[in-house]
């Protein structure tokens, strides 16, 4: 009984504390919201330069926090990685590790006002050497970007299509919104082109149908058609095949790969299926508890995984053709997101702790470069690799008292 009691105490918040937290959150988020709503903001405040003009997006120490009544949840805490042009980047991790929140921060579609990107920079390349810092971009400007330059394919095709509108109308809407000068006939022509592009024959009849009349695979094709309607530079695919069968999954993945080359865009592929990532991605980012623990090319991650979490993840998935007696399972569970430890987040579940020689009891490990493309956050490589720097979380108190 004693163990359960102790656990209860750790999560207990008195009414007084709770009220104080809500008041704090309200004041802070109100200010951040006001800042974002300012449509006439000086463009100089949110335009920057890309570090490397060959990247579409650069995440630089992005911190996305949720200010809830039980405390600040650091869903994404100091995430940095790049998405190069015309390539596919796979983001892997368990549910709740912040992979979806990272993509939502890029689209500025977070649940507001609680969810805020509190720090860091997300640089999006808009050509001519110019870049937008999405963190500071006002909402009005963001609306031009969404759907036009960055678009998203959601997980569940059933819930993300509107059941009361015809398929045609839903694709038309996107094209019309971003090309207000187009005539009605041209819009329809473009829609039919898109339907054909995603491999659906008989576009005219699909144009007039409702989402419930189509199968899961067809619906996901329609979602892809909507996402590609304006030839975006970046497609975010958030678990695009999780709800589908293997045979349909294979069809959709092939389609995505072909289309990516056809319209010269990049894909940010979010998934927890390592098999899908291996067959699609050029670069892989592994996330754990809101931080990137390992990143590199697909070759690096799958053939030379270095972080104990990545290794565990690979071993816990049964692979066809490789018989094992019992699957490996990572002991323990993810730490409480409200109250993250100071040391390495994976320390308590790690089976290679001895190799760190006690260093992981100290600060959270820095990003360590092992070779040109492979970066890992684990003290096991502290002496052999090149240390790139520690993640810099935003101090919420400081943000509250702020520069203003």
């Amino acid at each position: 009984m004693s163990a359960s009691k102790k656990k209860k105490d750790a999560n207990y918040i008195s009414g007084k504390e709770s009220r104080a937290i809500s008041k704090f959150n309200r004041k802070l988020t109100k200010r951040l919201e006001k800042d974002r709503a300012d449509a006439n903001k000086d463009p100089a405040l949110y335009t920057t330069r890309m570090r490397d003009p060959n990247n579409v997006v650069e995440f630089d120490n992005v911190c996305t926090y949720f200010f809830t009544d039980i405390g600040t949840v650091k869903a994404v805490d100091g995430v940095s990685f790049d998405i190069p042009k015309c390539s596919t980047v796979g983001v892997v991790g368990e549910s709740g590790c912040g992979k979806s929140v990272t993509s939502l921060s890029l689209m500025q579609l977070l649940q507001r006002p609680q969810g805020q990107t509190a720090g860091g920079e997300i640089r999006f390349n808009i050509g001519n050497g110019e870049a937008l810092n999405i963190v500071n971009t006002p909402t009005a400007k963001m609306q031009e970007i969404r759907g036009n330059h960055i678009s998203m394919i959601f997980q569940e095709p059933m819930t993300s299509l509107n059941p009361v509108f015809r398929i045609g109308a839903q694709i038309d809407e996107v094209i019309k919104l971003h090309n207000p000068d187009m005539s009605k006939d041209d819009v329809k022509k473009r829609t039919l082109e898109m339907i054909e592009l995603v491999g659906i024959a008989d576009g005219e009849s699909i144009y007039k149908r409702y989402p419930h009349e189509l199968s899961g695979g067809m619906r996901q094709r329609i979602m892809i058609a909507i996402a590609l309607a304006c030839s975006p530079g970046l497609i975010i695919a958030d678990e695009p095949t999780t709800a589908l069968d293997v045979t349909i999954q294979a069809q959709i993945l092939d389609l995505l790969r072909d289309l990516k080359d056809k319209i010269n865009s990049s894909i940010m592929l979010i998934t927890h299926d390592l098999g899908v990532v291996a067959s699609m991605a050029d670069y892989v980012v592994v996330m754990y508890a809101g931080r990137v623990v390992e990143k590199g090319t697909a070759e690096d991650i799958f053939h030379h995984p270095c972080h104990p979490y990545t290794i565990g993840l690979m071993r816990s998935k049964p692979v066809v053709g490789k018989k094992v007696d019992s699957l490996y399972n990572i002991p323990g569970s993810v730490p409480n997101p409200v109250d993250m430890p100071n040391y390495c987040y994976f320390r308590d579940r790690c089976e290679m702790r001895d190799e760190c020689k006690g260093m992981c009891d100290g600060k959270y490990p820095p990003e360590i470069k092992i070779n040109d493309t492979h970066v890992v956050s684990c003290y096991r490589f502290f002496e052999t690799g090149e240390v790139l720097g520690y993640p810099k979380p935003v101090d919420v108190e400081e943000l509250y008292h702020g520069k203003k």
Partner: protein
Amino acid sequence: MAKNENIVHDEYVAHGFKDAEKNPENLLVVKNLYKYFPIKSQFFKRTIGNVKAVDGVSFKIKRGTTMGLVGESGCGKSTVGRTILRLEQKTKGEVFFNGTEIFSLSKSELRKMRPKIQIIFQDPYSSLSPRLPIGEIIAEGVKEHKIVPADEVDDYVTRIMHACGLQEYHKDRYPHEFSGGQRQRICIARALALNPDFILCDEPVSALDVSIQAQVINLLRDLQKQFNLTYLFISHDLSVVEHISDTVGVMYLGNLVEYSDTDKVFAKPLHPYTKALFSAIPVPDPDYKMDRIILEGSIPSPSNPPSGCKFHTRCKECMEVCKYCQPDFMEVEPDHFCACHLYNSAERNAEFAAIVKEEKAKEAAQKAEEK
């Protein structure tokens, strides 16, 4: 429709399963199971058609082993499971559990049988009552079926919870206080508490994360060894099925198209659908070149399935005979069953050729009449 049914040869479909129920080694024998869901007309509620969810399925499961059932969504995997448990009434066919026909049992006899056959559902979030603490959820069935004397129930539940990796202090907690993996453990404990022989696992790990999946799969395997359980494991994740099961059945649109030992099916799939299905499994290795057989289109409607072999609309090796005749579910190699015309014997081929000829003649006559 009627034309189609004439060409089905029941005696061939269940060939190889004759008297299988009399062998005490086979815990569960399913012979020629059919389950149709009627479609009612809007007025008068007349039956105007059938959704053929399960359309002739035969298999057997040996004591202490696991059978995996795979297939695309909507192919009838779950309906097979629910019908075996008599949660749905059958349309036709026989299900033998421990040598007794389940559908012949009276209400009270069935009630006695119930604790022996248990189920674990797919979604651990919706299959636990949010208003009962865990201890009561597990004890409910134990009390109802008087598995142990009333004063020992509490200890018994504790023992079962320990076996499933739950602690005693979890008893007073409610389902919402647990994570997905823990909840699935509770569902397993609930099924296990009734001391069953057979557990139907209906996609028990598809709602869970990869690392949690491994925990639950390992738990299921340990319990199987400990309590000598028999599982029917329904899943669409082929790698999980390969890992856990001893035999595998592949379903397509209500029919079992291939059924054999796991090693045989994965090493040398016979049916074209199985081949296509296995080639689509993503392998976590970037250098692996997939030799993929892409299936065109999607699964046809089960209320109006294609005539003949149901897979012929998407099959790469479709022949003339496939369009008219349903293939037999036959033993191609010892203990390797497959329903495909590619493996017909010469005599059977001659018989089928005669039927095809007849059908074609009929069609031609019909056309001539129309003219």
